[in-house]
């Protein structure tokens, strides 16, 4: 092994190839304005600034199993302020997506869990079923907690029903796009395309 081998940026190349907008990572100049601008920055382990430096340092496992990209709320403060117009929010989502494909998401990461619920719900019929999604979310962490949350959120649910934002009949399947099988064919095609793009 040559002396410089440890500096080879294999992981940076991997990110550039597989992560949405990943080719921008090398443009970061470590000014820190994203880290300082993130409203949740103090709540997570790695700010975007840190994540980008870790990518360049080849810290593959730490990056892909970080909860940082799952904490992003897409407020876009970082993108707006970045002096180099690096699409930071998009990269964070890209990293989350890539980590998910590789099965490296931290266990019980709540955002990841909810994202999965949302996807499962949406991909069935092309429309979100507010009732089953809401119940799924309440019961995400077990039956007892689900009951407690349901009671707590009771009035919200009733108001949604009253204003036509939610329908109790949705429990029997709910509304869907007109052409469900066409919708599923589209999703499948998209997955195929993505599979060829990301190794």
């Amino acid at each position: 092994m040559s002396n410089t081998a440890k500096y080879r940026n294999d992981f940076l190349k991997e990110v550039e190839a597989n992560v949405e907008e990943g080719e921008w990572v090398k443009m970061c100049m470590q000014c820190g304005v994203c880290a300082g601008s993130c409203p949740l920055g103090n709540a997570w382990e790695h700010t975007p600034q840190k994540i980008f430096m870790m990518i360049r340092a080849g810290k593959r496992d730490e990056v892909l199993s970080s909860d940082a990209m799952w904490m992003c709320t897409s407020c876009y403060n970082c993108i707006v302020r970045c002096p180099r117009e690096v699409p930071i929010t998009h990269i964070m989502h890209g990293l989350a997506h890539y980590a998910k494909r590789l099965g490296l998401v931290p266990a019980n990461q709540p955002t990841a869990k909810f994202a999965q619920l949302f996807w499962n719900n949406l991909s069935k019929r092309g429309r979100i079923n507010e009732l089953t999604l809401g119940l799924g979310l309440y019961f995400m962490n077990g039956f007892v907690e689900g009951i407690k949350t349901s009671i707590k959120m009771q009035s919200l649910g009733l108001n949604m029903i009253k204003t036509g934002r939610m329908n109790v009949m949705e429990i029997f399947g709910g509304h869907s796009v007109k052409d469900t099988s066409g919708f599923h064919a589209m999703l499948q095609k998209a997955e195929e395309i993505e599979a060829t793009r990301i190794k």
Partner: protein
Amino acid sequence: MTEVVATNQTILVVGGGISGMTAALEAAECGKQVILLEKNPSLGGRVSQLYKYFPKLCMPTCGMEINLRRIKANPNVRVLTLAEVTQVSGTTGNYQVKVKLSPRYVNSNCTACGACADAVTAEFPNEYNYGLNNRKGAYLPFFMAYPQRYVLDPKIIGTADADKAQAACHCGAIDLDMQTEEMDLQIGSIIWATGWQPFDADKIQPYGHDRFANVITSVEMERMMDPMGPTGGRLVRPSDGQEAKNVAFIQCAGSRDRNYLKHCSRICCMATLKQTTYLREQFGDAGRATVYYIDIRAIDRFENFYQKVMKDDNIKFIKSKVANVIENKENNNPILRGVNTEGYHRYADEYDLVVLAVGMQPSVDFKSLGIDIVVNDNGFIEQNPHNGGMFAAGCASDALDVNRAVQNATASSLRAIQVINQVAGAEG
């Protein structure tokens, strides 16, 4: 009417800052005929608004005085103030230039006694001090102004103040009937020495220059330090007039930023390093400075200056582009927030005053002025054969310090002289 002699062996220098004065003098001292146009009522440009020069920390007034002496001694330079170019046509060795002369309402009888200023009452924001204080409607732009002649603000013309000024003048110097004049000049070569303007700090919303009294710009700090400036040379907080002893500097305020100015102005780091020494000069051991930076660009020989400042324990450096500034509502202290790249520590640091090190951008938009000259992405004039007999001097060509601006001006003067010599050769 203003009488001006110009031929196609005349060099026109537009802009009377340090670069324009230098370019004009170099050519005039080589025996060429030069017209020097300045849009303000006085020569001097932005250098006259600085307290001290880096790297030697001497007073800019000194160089200004030498240049003014050279101008006064040289019959080849014709200085026109309150003058702006409105149109340029023609080609190398044969330009037709339209110039607009705005009225000063004060003629050459003026002895700069100041009686007119004492007589008038209306006040206006003082542009020389970046609006930090007011001046009267009859005023001398600054104590070293050239020509040493008062000016009447056009806004007082037609008001009682104008009559008061005229009545107060013992020398018959005030002429309220002066009109705007248009001139057509025949010119051989043009040197654009129109300089720079500070980037508008209000545009950098996260830093709150437009919202918080104690967030100022680097150019405003220079004015505060001037003993004849708006605060009499005291570095104070605009909110309460208290001494600003603990000061933060934010580098690249609007520079190297695709949202604002893309380029690096290169002098802002040196300007800040210089200004940290102002704190020590004014407050001794009680003066403290903290510099927030992306990287310090003290180019070539200025590295020594940087090294010297770094040795001072009262001056700290934090590698971080500040995310935003908020205000402590109780004492109006600015609080800087961000993350320190060295260690990734989050900070919220409170200071007496924050200085934004703003970048330099061209003062003239040549495109919209309809001047056929090649400019780069940042609006500075490029050296290009397409420009023919037109050249840039000083900060019209790039963000430069005085030393480089003057070297650049001398070079452009030589280029203009070459054009004139060709014209003279052809004419025999």
